[in-house]
């Protein structure tokens, strides 16, 4: 299942809660695709220093794709980058500006930078802009997206919808208004709704917001077009959503809630990776009878845990996709070799354990 995705899809979105190994999985999915000869770029929206280290990228991940040095027998390419919302916003503004000087004006607005880092949803929206840009880039035939932890990942998926909704909203139209600048500020400030906002935050701040939005006049059309393209892309057959969880009730419940949100957004996930599964040991009774007491005690703990994991996976929500188990690693992945091992485990049929 995973192998099919890795060889065919053009966008793979990895989703999961914090601490389940999502970033590492995204990197090894990318690497597995590169070993199949594909030209892959991995973009992490949730920058972990470890990913840059594991990929052997000196100085860590950059805001532009950097090529990862792979063993000679790997025919494809692997590139990696992280999302920097401020850089991405500048890039978007520069390519979207509709008149000379507009980009500089918009960027000079003090809000523009603070918006990129602190406006809820902006980071997620910038992620979709970056993914859009990478999918349109002929240098790559697969984009792997490492999303933020699942409570924020839905915001990435919904970012285009939110933008379209905002552009269509009466408040936005009110703020943008028509007529001269002074008239616009005046009319904005006299609207009851905006007066209320002004009471919370101060009317000077409100006027700054109006200035900020005004700087973008004329760019709405292309913002909307791209947003609609991404909305369609998330739901297309060439995109796969891969869920990552640990094999515990807690983690499966969380990923199931996320999966429900995807379903309500009209998106179906394609695979579920159960990461960090406990190794099962089957020893015959005779051998186990001869083991030292401390070894049997520990092995019993280990096999009870493995059995419990199998039980909770089998009892998972029926809406969740097929499970691919990835065993617990002996140590943290810290280089390309470690990732290759993981990639191998992810796709190799000998390791693939399907749960019925």
């Amino acid at each position, binding site marked *: 299942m995973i192998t099919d995705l890795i060889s065919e899809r053009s966008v793979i979105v990895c989703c999961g*809660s*914090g*601490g*389940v190994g999502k970033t590492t999985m995204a990197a090894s999915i990318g690497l597995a695709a590169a070993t199949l000869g594909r030209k892959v770029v991995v973009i992490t929206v949730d920058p972990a220093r470890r990913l840059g280290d594991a990929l052997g990228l000196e100085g860590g991940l950059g805001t532009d794709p950097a090529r990862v040095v792979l063993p000679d027998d790997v025919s494809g390419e692997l590139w990696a980058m992280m999302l920097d919302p401020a850089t991405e916003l500048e890039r978007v503004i520069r390519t979207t500006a509709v008149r000379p000087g507009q980009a500089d004006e918009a960027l000079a607005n003090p*809000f523009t930078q*603070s*918006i990129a*880092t*602190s*406006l*809820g949803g*902006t980071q997620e929206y910038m992620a979709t802009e970056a993914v859009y840009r990478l999918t349109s880039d002929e240098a790559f035939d697969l984009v792997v997206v490492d999303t933020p932890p699942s*409570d924020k990942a839905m915001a990435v998926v919904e970012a285009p919808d*939110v933008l379209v909704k*905002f552009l269509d*909203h*009466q*408040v*936005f139209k009110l*703020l943008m208004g028509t007529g001269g600048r002074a008239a616009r500020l005046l009319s904005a400030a006299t609207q009851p*709704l905006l007066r*209320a*906002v002004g*009471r*919370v*935050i*101060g009317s000077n*701040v*409100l006027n*700054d*917001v109006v200035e900020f*939005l005004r700087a973008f006049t004329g760019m709405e059309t292309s913002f909307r077009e791209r947003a609609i393209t991404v909305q369609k892309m998330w739901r297309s057959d060439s995109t796969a959503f891969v869920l990552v969880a*640990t*094999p*515990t*009730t*807690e983690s499966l*419940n*969380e990923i199931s*809630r996320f999966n429900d949100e995807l379903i309500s957004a009209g998106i179906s996930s394609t695979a579920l990776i159960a990461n960090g599964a406990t190794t099962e*040991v089957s*020893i015959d009774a005779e*051998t186990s009878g001869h*083991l*030292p007491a*401390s*070894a049997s*005690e*520990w*092995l019993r*703990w*280990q096999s*009870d*845990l493995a059995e*419990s*994991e199998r*039980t*909770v996976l089998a009892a998972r929500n029926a809406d969740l996709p097929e499970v691919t188990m990835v065993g617990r690693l*002996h140590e*943290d992945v810290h280089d390309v070799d470690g990732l290759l091992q993981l990639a191998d485990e992810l796709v190799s049929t000998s390791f693939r354990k399907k749960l019925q």
Partner: protein
Amino acid sequence: MLLVLGKGGVGRTTTTALLAHGAHAAGLKVLVVAIDGKSSLHRLCPDGVDVRSVSAGSALEDYLLDQGFGNFARRLAQSGVIEVVGAAAPGIHDLVVLGKVKQFANAGQHDVVILDAPATGHATSMLSSVSGLLDIVEGGPIREQALDVQRLLMDAGRCGAVVVTKAETTPVNESIELISAIHSVDVALAGAIVNAVEPDEVLTNLSEKERSRLPAEVAELIDAAIARHQQSRHNIGRFVDALGNGVMEVERLATADLNRDLVAALATAAYGEPVS
């Protein structure tokens, strides 16, 4: 008020439930607060413990309602314009969430309020958002709220942070960073917990001779477990050094399916039998 802080996946929610069990068993009236609707606390906390969920969106709406904005509150929150405005005062969401928790703590209906905080990165920005806002906002209701919340957070007699980690290298590194972040916002450290410590100590009893006789498949697993055990002890040592204080270790049970009874058992193991 206890703030349970830690990296994603280390078991903050389990620890929150464990603390709730301990406090409940000691006869305290406990309120557990989850952020953004994590529902598993209901499943893990004992009966008799109140569990409430606070979401950033609804906390903002409530705040606006409290401020007398009436029907505008909902429209403001839904229009998205408050989001744009909020960017001018970063951290406003965090503030209203903490403000809500503060309200619970001040209501006096509970002896202890335990907050299952968001994962590390966000949790520290949540704590620092208060002083950040105080730098930006010069007056008005938001400033009052920030001052109130800051007063509670910095009152070591009433509020403290509990840092949760696993014994693995990356979580311990991040927890050490978290400890200094907590110090820098002047929040008191109330305790530290190493969660899911595996019962591999027992393997260190194996003699060289016993190890050499193990079947190959078993030997490989056990060698890896012993190596992990040594790494864990080393990591816990580093954590203790950074804290300058002891930690409570909570063992990892042989189950993928924690429930209320198992957490109660873990709490008893950690705190001892409750005083009746």
